[in-house]
């Protein structure tokens, strides 16, 4: 499908520190904030080819390429970012940063508070999606980006892309919103709540003060991740992936060890997650996601989008029950009502919410077409009598 599949090669995460304090939505002023980011491709002379891609809940700034020759895995959206790919780095200057409150380079609860020389822990202020977007905008200002050709994100990344369009309507020429929503359903909030509860009820969480302790709240964080992974799949995906198959055994063991493949998968996902993610970051970021509700904040979604001149592409996946298609349609309908330029595609997939990271072939095709607005007529004029 995709020609010239190539990688952006070896890349490096860079850091920018916003020295001045930023006012958060809660009223708290906070700073300094260091932002971890990566860029691919080059900003053109007209400075009009910048695309901001935004990661999902537990992602990072490393969206494409490899950090070293020995790196086993490329960045999280390498399938879509690179020379000749959907976000073609021969044409576009692609930027990705780690979210505020994260634990992959951007200042978050695990960062050292310069005033106490200890990690912030739960003294880190609660922030919102509006705040995370404000931080991204500061980074773009530092990179001398005058406007964005596009802002793109899936899941929580899509929520931030929505907020970006709302906060900076004149700055964004187009937005690509994938498997996302303008507000979580109570069901999705409930899963986040159980995840947070699992962390908080781990005795090793110690009110968020565990960074210098030997025992970290790994149990709680890994359980939270296991719950998350259930929501990223769907019934069909689970049947396809595991069925009722047993893990390395032919019969039940009649004890409480792992019997089923699905149990083993979840446990594995939980275990590898604690090595790369911070429990407090999980609490803060899921809270920001739960709070996100521009419909409520601006009276209606229509009102929230009214100043935007961006062109929109919205995509959802039919088996995604965490961010279901009806929530994407809500976004599309409010944009249609405003007469905005919007396209919407519901992609058939058996992969559930995870589809946005897996079904890259169709997404590539769609995104590529959407970003390329100079398409010549392909109908046969002769045939038009």
């Amino acid at each position, binding site marked *: 499908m995709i020609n010239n599949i190539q990688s952006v090669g070896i890349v490096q995460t860079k850091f920018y520190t916003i020295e001045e304090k930023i006012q958060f939505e809660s009223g708290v002023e906070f700073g300094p904030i260091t932002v971890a980011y990566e860029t691919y491709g080059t900003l053109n002379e007209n400075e009009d080819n910048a695309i901001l891609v935004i990661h999902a809940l537990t992602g990072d700034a490393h969206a494409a390429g490899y950090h070293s020759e020995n790196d086993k895995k490329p960045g999280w959206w390498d399938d879509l970012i690179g020379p000749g790919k959907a976000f073609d780095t021969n044409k576009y200057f692609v930027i990705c940063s780690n979210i505020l409150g994260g634990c992959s380079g951007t200042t978050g609860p695990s960062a050292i508070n310069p005033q106490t020389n200890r990690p912030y822990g739960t003294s880190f202020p609660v922030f919102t999606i509006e705040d995370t977007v404000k931080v991204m905008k500061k980074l773009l200002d530092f990179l001398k980006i005058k406007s964005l050709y596009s802002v793109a994100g899936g899941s929580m990344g899509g929520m931030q892309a929505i907020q970006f369009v709302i906060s900076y309507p004149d700055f964004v020429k187009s937005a690509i919103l994938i498997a996302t929503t303008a507000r979580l359903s109570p069901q999705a909030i409930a899963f986040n709540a159980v995840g947070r509860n699992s962390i908080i009820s781990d005795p090793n969480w110690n009110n968020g003060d565990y960074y210098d302790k030997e025992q970290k709240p790994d149990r709680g964080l890994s359980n939270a991740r296991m719950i998350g992974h259930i929501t990223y799949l769907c019934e069909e995906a689970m049947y396809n992936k595991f069925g009722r198959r047993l893990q390395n055994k032919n019969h039940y063991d009649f004890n409480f060890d792992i019997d089923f493949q699905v149990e083993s998968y979840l446990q594995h996902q939980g275990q590898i997650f604690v090595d790369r993610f911070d429990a407090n970051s999980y609490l803060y970021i899921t809270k920001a996601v739960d709070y996100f509700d521009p419909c409520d904040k601006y009276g209606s979604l229509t009102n929230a989008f009214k100043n935007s001149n961006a062109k929109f592409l919205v995509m959802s996946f039919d088996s995604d029950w965490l961010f279901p298609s009806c929530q994407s349609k809500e976004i599309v309908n*409010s944009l*249609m009502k405003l*007469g905005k330029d919007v396209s919407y595609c519901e992609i058939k997939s058996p992969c559930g919410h995870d589809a946005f990271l897996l079904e890259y072939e169709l997404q590539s095709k769609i995104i590529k077409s959407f970003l390329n607005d100079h398409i010549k007529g*392909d109908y046969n004029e002769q045939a038009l009598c």
Partner: protein
Amino acid sequence: MNRHYAESKGLHLNYSIISDMIDDYARVLDLGCGNGYLLKLLKDKKHINGNGIEISQKEVIQCLEKGLSVIQGDIDEGLKQFADKSYDYVILNQTLQSTHNPDYVLEEMLRVGKKCIVSFPNFAYWRIRFKFFFTGAMPKSRVLPFEWFNTPNIHLLTVKDFFEFTKQHNITILEGIYTTKAKVRKAIHYNLFSNFFAEEVIFIIAKN
């Protein structure tokens, strides 16, 4: 499906007639826009500001590849997201007979569009009548090529039926165009002749 068939046979008469009906720079909504052929034509020839609605994922992607704005959706569910009279033209080309609720779809498009362009195959076309009369089987034709068990055309109608419907629903017919393979005839009022000889028809309708 019908539209695809028409394209594969090179039957572009409808497209050029519809294109002639539309003013430059108009705001156009194409319901059941298929692969976007007509929208693309209108965009290039008439510089319209257009949107399409299409139910099939494959065709939505083909529209996007043409650089069109398209929404994947089911027109049978109505056009709730569109404000009253928000389009200069709403087009329903060769699709009316495949909708589940043609009366609701027509009502919705007349609400949203200042003018509506509706085209459909005339089931009272003489060849169809004769085929049915002499063979006793569900008639097939150039524009209705399907078998009874796989046809998407579940609400076939005639010119007479359409006139009757517009009368009952206070819909104004602004123009009627009756076509056969190569001939085109215009008339606003109903007559037996049109109902007998027209293979496909295109109407411009409106409702205030």
